[in-house]
C-alpha cells in the first residue's frame, strides 16, 4: 500500500471504533425492530419461535381506532405545544432582550425548568394538579371558585399535560431565540429606527425575518422532540383518562407490556421513526439549502 493511500485511509481508521459502536448500538436494534415488526411475537417466545406474518401488523394498525386516536393525540399534542412554545419563547426573548439590571438573573431563572429531569417534572405537576391537595385546586377553592378536574377529565387532562410541557420546554426556544436576537446586526435594527419603525415594526419587519433561519431549526428540533415525549405524561396521566392523553410512545409501551404484542409495538415504533426521520430530513435539507445559499453569496462577494 502506498503512503498516500495509507494517509487517505487514516481518518477512517480513527473513525472505525465509533462506527462499530454505532453499528451495534443503533443499527442492530433498528434492524431487529424492523424484523420484529413482521412477526407475531409474544414476549414469552424467543424471537426464533415467532410466526412471520408479513405486513399484517401494519395493516392491523391502520384499521385500529385506538392507534388512530393515539396518532391524533400525538399530532395534536405536538402541534399545540410547539406552537405555544414558539410564541411564548420568541415573545419572551423579544421582551427580555435588553440590558436592564437583574436581567441576567431573570434569564437564568427562565431556563431552569428545562434542567429538571422529566420524571421530576411529571411528579411535580401531578402533585400540583392533585384534585384536593394540589395547589391549583386549593387556591381555586380558597378564592371561592369551583375546583377543576385537572387530570380526571379528558379535555382538562390534555390541557394539563400541554401546560406542563409548555412550562418545561418554552425555555429551550427562549434561549435559542435570545441567542439569535443578540447576534442580529445591531446597526440594521438602528437603521430601521431611523427609518421610522416603531417597536412592533422593528420586530415584524427586521428582527423576526432575520431570526427566521434559527427559528425554523428550533421549531423542527422541538417538533421532533415533542413526538418522543413520554415520562412526563406517563407519570401524570399514564395516557388517561380513556385515551385522551395517550400519545404514541405511551401506546407503544402499553402494546408491548400490557397487550404483549411485540410485533405490533415494533411496527408502531417504525412508523414513529419514519415520521421523525422525515422531520430530521426536512431540517437537514433546510440546513443544506442555507449553506448552499451562503456559499453562493460568498462566491458573489469574492468576485465583486
Amino acid at each position: 500500500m502506498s503512503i498516500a493511500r495509507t494517509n487517505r485511509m487514516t481518518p477512517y481508521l480513527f473513525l472505525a471504533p465509533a462506527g462499530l459502536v454505532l453499528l451495534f448500538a443503533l443499527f442492530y436494534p433498528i434492524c431487529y425492530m424492523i424484523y420484529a415488526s413482521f412477526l407475531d411475537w409474544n414476549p414469552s417466545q424467543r424471537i426464533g419461535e415467532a410466526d412471520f406474518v408479513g405486513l399484517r401488523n401494519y395493516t392491523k394498525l391502520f384499521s385500529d381506532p385506538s392507534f388512530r386516536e393515539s396518532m391524533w393525540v400525538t399530532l395534536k399534542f405536538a402541534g399545540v405545544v410547539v406552537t405555544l412554545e414558539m410564541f411564548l419563547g420568541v415573545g419572551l426573548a423579544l421582551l427580555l432582550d435588553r440590558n436592564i439590571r437583574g436581567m441576567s438573573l431573570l434569564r437564568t431563572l427562565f431556563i431552569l425548568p428545562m434542567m429538571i429531569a422529566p420524571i421530576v417534572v411529571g411528579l411535580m405537576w401531578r402533585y400540583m394538579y392533585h384534585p384536593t391537595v394540589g395547589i391549583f385546586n386549593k387556591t381555586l377553592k380558597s378564592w371561592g371558585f369551583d375546583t377543576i378536574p385537572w387530570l380526571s377529565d379528558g379535555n382538562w387532562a390534555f390541557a394539563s399535560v400541554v401546560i406542563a410541557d409548555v412550562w418545561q420546554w418554552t425555555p429551550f426556544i427562549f434561549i435559542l431565540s435570545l441567542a439569535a436576537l443578540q447576534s442580529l446586526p445591531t446597526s440594521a435594527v438602528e437603521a430601521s429606527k431611523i427609518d421610522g419603525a416603531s417597536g412592533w415594526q422593528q420586530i415584524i419587519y427586521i428582527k423576526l425575518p432575520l431570526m427566521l433561519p434559527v427559528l425554523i431549526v428550533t421549531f423542527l428540533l422541538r417538533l421532533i422532540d415533542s413526538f418522543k415525549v413520554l415520562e412526563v405524561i406517563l407519570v401524570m396521566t399514564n395516557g388517561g383518562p380513556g385515551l385522551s392523553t395517550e400519545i404514541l410512545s405511551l401506546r407503544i409501551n402499553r402494546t408491548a407490556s400490557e397487550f404483549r404484542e411485540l410485533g405490533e409495538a415494533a411496527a408502531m415504533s417504525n412508523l414513529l421513526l419514519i415520521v421523525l426521520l422525515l422531520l430530521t430530513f426536512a431540517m437537514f435539507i433546510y440546513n443544506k439549502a442555507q449553506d448552499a445559499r451562503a456559499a453562493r453569496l460568498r462566491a458573489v462577494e469574492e468576485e465583486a
Partner: protein
Amino acid sequence: MPEIRLQQLRKDYGAVNVIENLNLEMADGEFTVLVGPSGCGKSTTLRMIAGLESVTGGQIVIGDRDVSKLEPKERDLAMVFQDYALYPHMNVAKNMSFALRLARMNKSDIEKRVKEVAATLDLTAYLDRKPAELSGGQRQRVAMGRALVRDAGTFLFDEPLSNLDAKLRGQMRAELALMSQRIRKNMIYVTHDQVEAMTLGDKIVVMKFGEIMQAGTPEQLYRNPANKFVAGFIGSPTMNFLAAELIEENGVLSAKGQGFSIPLPDARRASLQAHKDRNIHLGIRPSSFTEGPGGLKMPVILSEYIGAQSVLISELGGQQVAIEVNTVVPIRAGEEREFKVQGDEIHLFDPQTEAAL
C-alpha cells in the same frame, strides 16, 4: 429646514465620561464635518443627535424643538452608517423604500422616488438584488440611496466611505460633494480622515477626547489653527514642529533653535512681545519651505517622489523635518540644499497650553 444646536451636551457610559461639555451650532443647510482621531467621541456625538444614544446631560435643539428626549423617528433625519446597515433580507428596492413604506406613502410615488434616486446612484440594474449580492461600493451607494429617498431635514453620515478602497473613496467623495451642493440640507458628517473633512465640509469641527478643539471653515483651520493639535491634524503631509526660543536680534523678533534662526514678520511683533525670551513650539508646514539660495542649509535624508511633488525628509537642529517641493528637477537623497521659510507662514505655539500664539 432648521439649524441645529448642541448645548452643554454630555455623555457618560456608566462611570466613563466620553463627552463632557459640547457646544456647537450648525447653520441651516450647512455641511458640518466632525473630524478627529479614533475614539474621540465623533460617533457618540452623531448617535446622540440621531437619538440612537441617550443624552446624559444638555440639549439637542433642531430648529426650535428640543429633540434630546425624542425617538429617532421623531427627529426627521436620515443616516448612513459606517457598515451600511442594510437590511440583509430585503432587496435594494425594498431597502431604499423601507422608510417610505412605513410612512404609508402611496405605491406609485414610492416606486417613482426609488427609481429616481437609484438612477442618480447608478443602481437601477441592481434593484432586485439582495445586499449580499452586491460589491462594497454598490452597498455603500444603496446606503446613500436609502437616506436620499427620504426627504429628511437632516442627513447624518458616520464614516460612510471608510470601508471603501482608496480609489472608490475618492470617487464617492466627489459624488457626495456634488450631491450636497444639489440638495442643500443640514448634513453632519463624521470622519477621521482630514482630507475628507477638508474637501466636503462647509464647516469643520476638530475633536479630541470628547472636546472641540476648533470649529471653522477649512481655510480658517488650515491658515489659523487655534492650537498645536489642530495644526498637526489638518494638512498633509503633517506640519513640522520644532522646539525654539523667541528672541530679539538686532531689533528683529526671531525664532531661534538649534542650528537655525528664523526671523518673524513685524506684523506679529505686538502679539508676541509678551512671549519674548520664552520657549515656544514652531510649526512649519512642509509646503512652506521653498528651495533657493540664502536659506538654511539642510541635508536631504530621504526623498519620496510622488509625481508633481516630492516630500523630502531632512533634519534641522537634530529634529526631523518634512519638506514638500515641486519636482521639476528631482532632488536625490544624500544632497545638501538650501531652503527658505516664508516668515508669514510660520505658526507658533505655547509649549504648555499648546495654544497658538
